[in-house]
């Protein structure tokens, strides 16, 4: 089931329940390093987020989501916000259950150009490309592919170090328990910036009252060693101190693939088989499928590019 959030505010009613600790856990097992509790609602303010230092994400609101009891449901759904006047994404929310998780590998999303999108490469970035099209609701959770309301311009660091770990945790929990996780990702923009400063990520396992999954974190949309102008998406090496005069390169034509020059297979960049290619056999390629086939490559049987 999909629905559109016409309006949504992080301001929520404060539930009557006091902060009494994680539901379902014996007192002796309460986590010592964080303070968790029943859902109490609340309001997120970006001002409570410390400046980035060296961690991809930071816990906020004592690592307890801003959900209220009224948000909880054991019916699966996903919802997205319409783009605003600047073409920016808003909050995306889901009750993640097995019935809405994908059954097929992800397709291409290169046709979507999120706000602030630029194609720019740096040698210091894993995979070269500074920006990824970051799913707010990860594909592995809801199977939502090339939806412009679900894709933001995010750094590789945000995508892999900041968001993916939480998506993995939620996906595993749902797959192993057949329970639901209420999951919400809110991109945080300053003023009229086209690139988000970061994302607020919230998760809560419904059937066990947060015993399995409970987090509320802010993940930074940064890339170590690179400075970003969030108003435009322009970027430059931090050590150079000034922005590049022109984008590093024009938008390449075609689709991004990863080639295995040994097996002569080609994959989508996020295909799990592509992760296993040894560095000496791995090559990144942007172009058309037809050209690759003409060069003797065949599509991966798993991601079916």
């Amino acid at each position, binding site marked *: 089931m999909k629905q559109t959030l016409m309006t949504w505010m992080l301001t929520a009613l404060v539930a009557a329940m006091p902060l009494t600790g*994680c539901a379902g856990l014996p007192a002796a097992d309460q986590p010592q390093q964080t303070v968790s509790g029943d859902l109490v609602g609340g309001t997120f303010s970006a001002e409570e987020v410390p400046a980035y230092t060296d961690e991809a994400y930071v816990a906020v609101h004592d690592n307890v989501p801003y959900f209220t009891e009224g948000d909880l449901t054991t019916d699966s759904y996903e919802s997205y916000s319409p783009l605003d006047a600047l073409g920016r994404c808003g909050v995306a929310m889901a009750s993640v259950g097995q019935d809405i998780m994908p059954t097929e590998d992800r397709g291409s999303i290169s046709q979507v150009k999120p706000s602030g999108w630029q194609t720019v490469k740096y040698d210091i970035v894993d995979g070269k490309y500074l920006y990824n099209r970051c799913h707010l609701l990860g594909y592995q959770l809801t199977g939502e592919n090339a939806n412009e309301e679900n894709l933001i311009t995010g750094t590789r660091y945000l995508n892999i170090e900041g968001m993916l770990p939480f998506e993995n*945790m939620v996906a595993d929990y749902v797959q192993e328990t057949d329970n639901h996780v209420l999951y919400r990702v809110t991109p945080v923009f300053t003023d009229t910036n086209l690139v988000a400063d970061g994302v607020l990520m919230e998760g809560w396992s419904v059937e066990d009252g947060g015993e399995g999954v409970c987090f509320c974190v802010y993940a930074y949309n940064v890339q170590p060693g690179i400075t970003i102008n969030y108003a435009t998406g322009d970027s430059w090496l931090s050590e150079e101190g000034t922005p590049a005069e022109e984008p590093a390169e024009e938008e390449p034509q075609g689709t991004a693939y990863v080639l295995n020059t040994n097996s002569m297979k080609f994959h989508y960049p996020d295909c*799990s088989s592509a992760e296993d290619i040894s560095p000496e056999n791995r090559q990144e390629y942007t172009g058309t499928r037809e050209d690759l086939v003409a060069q003797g490559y065949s599509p991966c049987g798993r991601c079916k590019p």
Partner: protein
Amino acid sequence: MTVLVCLDDKNGMQFNGRRQSRDRVVSAHMLEDSGGVLYVSPRSVPLFPPETALAVTENVLEDTPEDGVCFVETPPLGPAAPRIHRLIVYRWNRVYPTDAALDLQLDHWTLRERTEFPGSSHPKITREVYEP
């Protein structure tokens, strides 16, 4: 004693007081490792079938006998290190959020065995056996 742990790619064990992941195939392997009774904390019980032979205790590392096998989800393990004669690590081969990691230096241990198998929700689980 033999201690079983699950780790992500950064040797993380937990985030916000909760396990990073779970996999029923890994749970089955742990029961095979135990050879009988597996010592666990109360919060680990739901990972195993109801009829499983478990010894449930709040103080797993202290209560597991010298020849026993326990599953530990929460660090620290360091204080019990002198009693650990075998450490079995199940690696998820993924990165999860973490704020509590294994506090043993595995490069100070001897890796005796490494095997791989598919999990139920993980394409590849790596099982490593270490000795002091």
